[in-house]
């Protein structure tokens, strides 16, 4: 399996997830190296089974790479291609989407990735060449993907407007869909109003009205109430905190928080933590 993404963190996580199911993985950070690599593997007679390609990359984006692969006059042109896209790229031209066998939206879920790979390989067994999709089919898939994106959002709970905007910017740029709450009380209300809408929460600890600790306790209490003998769906809650004081960690864990980010927040650590909790 060849994986191409300019973001090293994403590459590491994706590589880890694929190795869990014993796939051999080659990672590339520079999309310009894809075609030369594919051609060389052809010469060595050790071709890849498929390539997973991020859409948003510098120099050559995912569409450019896919187009280059599909228009070569070598067997490389039939390589199964899986696109990694973000919610921001939904409105692209449908003919460009048709270069790919399938589209996966971020954040990647482990089980969905395995299922889609299996589907692609199964489909290719039946028709081993590039799928000639009709525009209608490609369109259907876009809508289908869109539904999934809407079903998964990150809830960002932060009272400081600058930090709120910064965290939202970082997450949105990385392709995630974000809702914002100004304090713990608002967060709890949002969770009650739309159960199942959010797949994780970033929660500031120190806030007016209701702080992050109280809000987490409240959310956990409700999660416990909803299940009936079933294992509860536990929403990952990540604390955002500037404190590294003794006792803080214990307080967070006791309240039911799963992880934490230290302020000032860094883009890499934010994205890393989203993936960490998304693939669980």
């Amino acid at each position, binding site marked *: 399996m060849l994986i191409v993404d300019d973001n090293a963190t994403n590459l590491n996580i994706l590589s880890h997830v694929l190795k869990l199911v014993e796939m051999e993985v080659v990672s590339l950070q520079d999309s310009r190296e894809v075609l030369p690599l594919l051609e060389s593997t052809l010469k060595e007679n050790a071709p890849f089974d498929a390539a997973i390609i991020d859409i948003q990359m510098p120099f050559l984006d995912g569409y450019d790479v896919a187009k280059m692969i599909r228009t070569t006059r070598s067997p490389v042109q039939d390589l199964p291609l899986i696109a990694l896209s973000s919610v921001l790229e939904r409105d692209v031209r449908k003919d460009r989407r048709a270069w790919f066998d399938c589209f996966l939206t971020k954040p990647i879920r482990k089980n969905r990735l395995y299922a889609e790979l299996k589907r692609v390989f199964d489909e290719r067994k039946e028709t081993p060449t590039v799928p000639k999709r009709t525009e209608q089919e490609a369109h259907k898939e876009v809508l289908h993907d869109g539904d999934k994106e809407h079903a998964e959002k990150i809830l960002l709970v932060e009272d400081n407007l*600058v930090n709120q905007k910064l965290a939202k910017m970082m997450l949105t740029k990385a392709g995630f869909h974000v809702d914002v709450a100004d304090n713990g009380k608002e967060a709890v209300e949002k969770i009650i109003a739309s159960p199942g809408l959010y797949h994780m929460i970033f929660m500031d600890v*120190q806030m007016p009205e209701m702080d992050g600790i109280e809000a987490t306790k409240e959310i956990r209490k409700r999660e416990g109430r909803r299940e009936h003998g079933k294992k509860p769906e536990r929403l990952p809650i990540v604390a955002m905190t500037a404190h590294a004081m003794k006792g803080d960690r214990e307080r967070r864990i006791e309240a039911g928080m799963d992880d934490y980010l230290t302020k*000032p927040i860094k883009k890499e650590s934010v994205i890393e933590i989203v993936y960490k909790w998304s693939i669980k």
Partner: protein
Amino acid sequence: MNFKELGENLGLEEDEYMELVELLIETGKADLQKLKTAMEQEDSDEARNAAHSLKGASGNLGLMDIFETAGQCEAAALNHQMNDLPPLVKKIGDMLETLSIAAGI
């Protein structure tokens, strides 16, 4: 002030970073006003909150001079040393003014 570099440190484009700076100046002025009112009313809790807010925002944007001075304000308020505040608050006001000019806002 190299806004392009400060933005890059956060993985942002310069124009995105400038949006955040603009918001910081706006909220920073409100925090500064709260600090002044808190000083008049000798309300150390309110002073601490306002300083904390400014410290958090400037720290995240990598504006370390404001971050450090706001941190000193927060510490002074926490220890109820309200007499230490006036020079620090004035310093923050000047820094926000400088930032505002540099950002062309």
